């Protein structure tokens, strides 16, 4: 589904990713771990197409519905419509716009692109409430402006809700566990688990191992100084938890 080859990218002339190689197949969950400043968030933003980051070389091959695309150079909205989703580490507030309006606009933009019928507000309301129930979310938030005055936990759960609504093929979750207490983390993890399917894939970017107790990854990669320095099965996460990163990076 996703194959990143020798990806170099940075911001304002400073190279942060220094040759990333990563292959993700449908149905898999990959965890990417690493110390602060290793390039984890940059990787997620580069996959999603943040305009402030520049890719200097390499490709991000993405295969969906028998189409092979190079995400590099594609507009972020086009990537989203092709099924790429990024859960933000710091979700952004959009004052004055109810979540329901925003989500329906996004959902329909994706439907239009994929040739699926759009949903009217009444049907969408039902669909949205169904997904909120699935994620044990309070339905009263449906008309609140997007992320405005949401607590940290509510914002993160709202990201998972968006993922549930937009139904991506590839979800990149950027430190979705950071700032969450253990109960919120369990709810978020449960949500992600419910959304796992054989035809979609998840990249979990995390600083800590504890999220991986609730979402079982198929692979764990350690990112250090812009490169993946180690890739193994889920045991690697536990080993990092026990021994830290130092032994991996010297």
């Amino acid at each position: 589904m996703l194959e990143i080859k020798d990806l170099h990218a940075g911001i304002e002339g400073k190279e942060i990713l220094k040759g990333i190689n990563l292959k993700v197949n449908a149905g898999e969950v990959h965890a990417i771990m690493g110390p602060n400043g290793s390039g984890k968030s940059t990787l997620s933003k580069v996959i999603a197409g943040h305009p402030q980051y520049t890719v200097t070389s390499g490709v991000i091959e993405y295969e969906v519905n028998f189409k092979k695309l190079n995400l590099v150079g594609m507009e972020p909205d086009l990537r989203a419509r092709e099924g790429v989703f990024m859960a933000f580490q710091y979700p952004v507030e959009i004052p004055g716009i109810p979540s329901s309006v925003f989500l329906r606009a996004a959902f329909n933009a994706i439907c239009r692109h994929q040739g699926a019928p759009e949903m009217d507000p009444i049907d969408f309301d039902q669909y949205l409430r169904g997904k909120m129930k699935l994620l044990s979310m309070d339905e009263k938030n449906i008309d609140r402006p997007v992320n405005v005055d949401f607590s940290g936990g509510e914002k993160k759960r709202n990201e998972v809700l968006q993922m549930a609504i937009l139904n991506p093929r590839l979800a990149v979750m950027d430190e979705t566990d950071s700032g969450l207490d253990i109960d919120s983390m369990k709810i978020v993890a449960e949500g992600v688990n419910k959304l796992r399917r054989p035809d979609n894939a998840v990249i979990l970017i995390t600083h800590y191992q504890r999220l991986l107790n609730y979402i079982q990854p198929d692979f764990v990669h350690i990112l250090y100084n812009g490169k993946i320095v180690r890739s193994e099965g889920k045991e690697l996460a536990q080993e990092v938890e026990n021994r830290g990163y130092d032994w991996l990076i010297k």
Partner: protein
Amino acid sequence: MSDTGKQKELEANKLAAGDYRYGFHTDIAEDKPPKGLNEDTVRLISAKKKEPEWMLEWRLKAFRHWQNMHEPTWANFEYGPIDYQDIFYYSAPKQKKPSPTSLEEVDQELLKTFDRLGIPLTEQKRISGVAVDAVFDSVSVGTTHQSELAKHGVIFCSMSEAVLHHPDLVKKYLGSVVPYTDNFFAALNAAVFSDGSFCYIPKGVHCPLELSTYFRINAEDTGQFERTLVVAEDSSYVSYLEGCTAPMRDTNQLHAAVVELVALDHAHIKYSTVQNWYSGDKEGRGGIYNFVTKRGKCAGAHSTISWTQVEAGSAITWKYPSVILQGDNSVGKFYSVALTNHHMIADTGTKMIHIGKNTKSTIVSKGISSDHAHNSYRGLVKIMPSAEGARNFSQCDSMLVGNHCSANTFPYIEVKNNTAVLEHEASTSKINAEQMFYLRSRGLDLEESVSLIINGFCKDVFKELPLEFSVEAVKLLEMKLEGSVG
């Protein structure tokens, strides 16, 4: 180049630059006396309207006063000098039947024009729930739903008709809120005003329809000087809407209107404007100078006047819809969205003059500026010594799109009674790159994302508009901003 040739070229330009779908010109013969302004012009306009002597006298007094006035220069913009002798002051479409007695007899070309503007006038097609007075250049071509309104005692007609058929009301209220001595453009308007709408809501009547006037400038080099007067008697209610468009031309045209509102005891007037005059091309050529005086007087106790405006057109907008809060416990409101793009300029805001006890005013102003535009909020809150317990809340927010535009806020406050409570909030923001990325990463394209952010920003104003207008306003802003972001 012929007028139609020019028109075509401009339309082609505009298609390349973004869409102004009201920019067409109606080819119709005009009754258009020569350019220039003197006492004879004033007499001629008055004669065309078959006005009584008192009306002509008032106009002439205004004209003589205007001759001794100077064009104001305090606004936060500059514009080329206006040659008042190089303007047509009167232009009326020549109709096959000179004075149609019903809308069905109005010239087909005119009916077609209003159809094309989305304001069908004929019985079978017109919009239910909204009565329309359609003004084309210097004259009203017709007013819908008049008989239905008459059943409730509501008078809704063109200003010219009102002068002839309701002289007592006109004499009593015309100039009572905006006297001809008020300012340069108000004096000019009083001298040469050609048409506009008159509404009178009798005591205790909740006007059953939305009343609306649609202003269309068509003829070249004409000025449009319309005058609107709304009088709401004790305990009455009216919601009035106003829309405006003009063809695309590469010269500037002057629109200097006066609107007066009078609300008596417990009366409530809600006045909404969606202004979409042609704003000039991408380089700032052409467009309307929209220099307007709008003022309401809460003459009665517990009366309410609320102005809501969406200003999205005109090369220059210069207006301050104001409320004189004379009656005790009266309420004034001002909700405004001013959108400027390309080289547009807006200097707009309000004045709230608190005279009565426990008077309250609310000001919510949202300015959006993109490309090379300048957008200023200018407002005055004045608390007179008599205004015991007055309250004001003002919120002025500006949003900048791009790096070449500017926004200013000029809030003036004068308090002469220390029981007053005033609150003022102001903010300036740029469309935030992180917000844009967030929305786009969810599949919304550039324009959809901007439109959502702008809608959110303007929500407090849009919710004050009558429903069908608020949909229109949202579409209008989206259309204007198309191509401005990126």
